[in-house]
């Protein structure tokens, strides 16, 4: 067994520096690497380029890094629900690149899978395709989108083992598996870290080969963004 376990978040984040590019798993506030984000705030690294579907809310998720002005550029598909984000974007402090959600997922997966780029129909004929190579296949037009290059990928899983194998729960899975192995170093934080042999190999969502460091997250708030219920 190749052991990926590290003692905690500070060891897991060794090597993070100013001006790096990071990937963050999560959709809205679901399945975000809360412990890694909190530690990045503590470390105070700045000038970051962040690849993440969303940008958190004012006081949670990537919003915490925005509050401290640690982010230089965001690459996302949807960035509502965040006043500080809006302020920095409109004042020009923050560079924002909006891209289609499926393209974001596939640019991560391409990096993970060793593809330099992929063709997608998404965004053809729109401003997203401006300046990009396009090509026709079987009468339909596609846009060439390049694989991301990132220094760290921060992901969150439900359960993991010391070999780095991961299992996710519900829709907290989202971009997390696509980002594993898509950056130079993948850091996984888990709610439950088990010894090897405790997870059924048939049930693994991400094999440990894609994960460089794994740690047990000390605190998961798991905040709900839109609490919707029905009456009994």
């Amino acid at each position, binding site marked *: 067994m190749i052991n990926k376990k590290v003692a905690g978040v500070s060891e897991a984040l060794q090597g993070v520096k100013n001006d790096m590019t990071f990937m963050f798993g999560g*959709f809205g506030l679901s399945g975000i690497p809360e412990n890694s984000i909190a530690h990045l705030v503590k470390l105070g690294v700045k000038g970051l380029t962040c690849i993440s579907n969303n940008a958190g809310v004012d006081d949670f998720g990537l919003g915490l890094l925005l509050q401290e002005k640690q982010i230089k550029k965001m690459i996302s598909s949807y960035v509502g629900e965040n006043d500080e984000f809006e302020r920095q974007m409109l004042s020009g402090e923050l560079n924002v690149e909006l891209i289609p959600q499926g393209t974001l997922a596939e640019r991560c997966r391409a990096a993970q899978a060793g593809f330099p780029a992929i063709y997608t129909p998404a965004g053809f004929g729109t401003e997203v395709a401006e300046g990009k190579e396009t090509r026709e296949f079987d009468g339909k037009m596609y846009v060439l989108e390049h694989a991301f290059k990132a220094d760290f990928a921060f992901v969150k899983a439900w359960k993991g083992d010391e070999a780095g194998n991961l299992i996710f729960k519900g829709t907290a899975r989202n971009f997390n598996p696509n980002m594993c192995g898509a950056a130079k170093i993948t850091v996984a934080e888990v709610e439950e870290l088990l010894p090897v042999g405790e997870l059924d190999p048939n049930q693994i969502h991400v094999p440990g080969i894609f994960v460089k460091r794994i740690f047990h997250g000390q605190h998961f708030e798991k905040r709900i963004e839109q609490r919707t219920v029905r009456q009994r």
Partner: protein
Amino acid sequence: MLDKNGIAKRIAKEVQDGFYVNLGIGIPTLVANYVRDDIEVEFQSENGVLGMGPFPFEGEEDADIINAGKQTITTLPGASFFDSSTSFSMIRGQHVDLTILGAMEVSEGGDIANWKIPGKMVKGMGGAMDLVASAENIIVAMMHTNKRGASKLLKKCSLPLTGVSCVKKIVTNLAVLEVTDNGFKLLERAPGVSVDDIKSATEGTLIIEGDVPEMAL
């Protein structure tokens, strides 16, 4: 004239047995409330769930089970969870049978604009560009005119596009229309709405053939 629920009710009639359906935010979300209960339909949400159920009972919300609007949801028997790449494989690979989404503008050529108003805060396109670029069957649910009374069915979209030549059908508070090579073909009128009402609310080319029936709801 229909209200938002009326639009959803009419669109629900387009949902067929055995369909996998992706619903956008807003009026499209309401469609789920009106689908006949004698047919089997599964709702997909692009954040990674197929087989979405209703909202949870109070106290049973789970931060790990949400829809693309970040609302807490439940799942039905037979549901599955998956990653974002797999989710968009279902969409791009045309495994999802029907996509229903809102729009700010639609052109008579089937172009759609629904993600950006220049000069206003842009929140992003989310999954809309992937959905419209790929789906074979796209229905737009929207009001016929905007808040200022201007038509949203245009010769050409004025706002930045989400996709080109992709919309097939539009259901508004006034009418059901099909996008054809020659323009918007009027299929049905909403209850109490005349062909003239629809004409004056439509900027794009409107094709009227024979008597246009009133929609049955």
